């Protein structure tokens, strides 16, 4: 059995294999429980009694670590604040994907089942753009403009690889923001798109003979990493 720690562990894998992070996690996730139990035990006069003060310390430590997990991504500042910044960041990525599929199909390098996948996935990305645009407007925000993009389409294989790269990035970008989203509506939308990006990535990897799910736990990507990876495909805007 492969140890996920050797395989760029995800959050759960890290928890599982590292006793220190399990303790941190316990403080993080188990704060309410630990606090309640500390009080209960002291009320019952148990031998394993903890003072209420100690329970409060654990809760305070937990609040700190939870804040860390859900802290806003600094690279998102140019998109504004909070959920709207996340939604506009997601919209930017969806614009790039939509433009990529459209231009790839226009380039004529794709045929057969690859071409079919591109048509289908391109339509779905366009639907994501529409949904995010509506969501941002209804939440009182202003949707970003589509960025100008540039891609090179040498052949079918390179184009499929690039598609898989964009979809992997997209999925991991959503994953990187999930814990930072406050609005249940925006979270539900982000989750329902996240897994579709993952389906796209898997099919594109699979069709080129690569592992569709290269590890047991997906790795989130922060906005700085994602935006830097997308940068080469954007035409510099005059500011």
């Amino acid at each position, binding site marked *: *059995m*492969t140890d*996920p720690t050797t395989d760029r562990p995800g*959050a*759960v*894998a890290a*928890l*599982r294999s590292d006793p220190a992070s*399990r303790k941190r*996690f*316990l403080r*993080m*996730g*188990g*704060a*309410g*429980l*630990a*606090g*309640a*139990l500390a*009080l*209960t035990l002291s*009320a019952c006069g148990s031998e394993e009694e903890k003072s209420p003060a100690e329970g409060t310390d654990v809760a305070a430590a937990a609040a700190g670590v*939870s804040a860390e*997990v859900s802290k806003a991504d600094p690279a998102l500042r140019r998109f504004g604040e909070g959920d709207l910044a996340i939604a506009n960041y997601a919209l930017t990525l969806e614009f790039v994907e939509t433009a990529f599929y459209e231009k790839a199909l226009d380039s004529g390098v794709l045929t057969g089942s690859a071409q079919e996948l591109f048509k*289908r*996935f391109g339509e*779905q990305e366009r*639907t*994501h753009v529409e*949904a995010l645009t509506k969501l941002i407007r209804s939440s009182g925000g202003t949707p970003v403009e589509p960025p100008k993009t540039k891609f090179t389409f040498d052949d079918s294989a390179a184009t499929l690889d690039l598609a898989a790269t964009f979809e992997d990035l997209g*999925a991991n970008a959503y*994953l990187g923001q*999930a*814990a*930072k989203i406050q609005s*249940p509506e925006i*979270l539900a*939308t982000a*989750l*329902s*798109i*996240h*897994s*579709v990006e*993952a*389906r*796209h990535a*898997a*099919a594109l990897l*699979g*069709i080129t003979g690569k592992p*569709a*799910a290269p*590890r*047991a*736990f*997906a790795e*989130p990507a922060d906005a700085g990493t994602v935006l830097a990876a997308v940068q080469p495909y954007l035409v510099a805007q005059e500011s």
Partner: protein
Amino acid sequence: MTTRIPTDAPALHAVEVGGMTRSSFILRGALAAGALFGASAATPLVSRALAQAGDIEVLNFALTLEYLEADFYTAARELPLREELAALAAEFGEHERQHVDALTATITGLEGEPAKRPPFEFALQSEADFLRLAVMLEDTGVAAYNGAAPRLESKAVLAAAGGIVQVEARHAGEIRRLAGKDPAPAAFDRALSTQEVQAAIEPLIRTS
């Protein structure tokens, strides 16, 4: 192997009952603390304790689904699958086993009690059976995580669940492609309620 459609699935109910029992236990503890320290001290404790118990229930529900998927891929080893699918079943089965281990450790880390593995039964005789069930299980897994994740109180648990659901979605996408289906049947994945997921998987739980 036979197909059986039981009308009831005690194993799953036990998961729920276990969680409920635990919630009420924790709630009682928090209320007892309130009696001692005053109601104002207890209010945040009650809501936090309940939220925490809720996360454990969600994690145990996810664990039950991962048991199901892991056992399914193990059962698929007995089938005459073409090489590509046999390799995929082995790989995906390994992922599901890692999810089982990770969820078990997480539940234990939160001082919860991991749900027991229900006895599953799969009507698997052919490659077509394998593909049909694999698509159903992976699609259901994705929808179950997407439905449950917004209920999670802990952002750390949410992030961890997200890392798993992405892998379930990758499995679903690739298996659907290999089954000749659209890898992503809709632009937005469904979110199923706990009850809908239970209804979908109950036929796979052995009752006797």
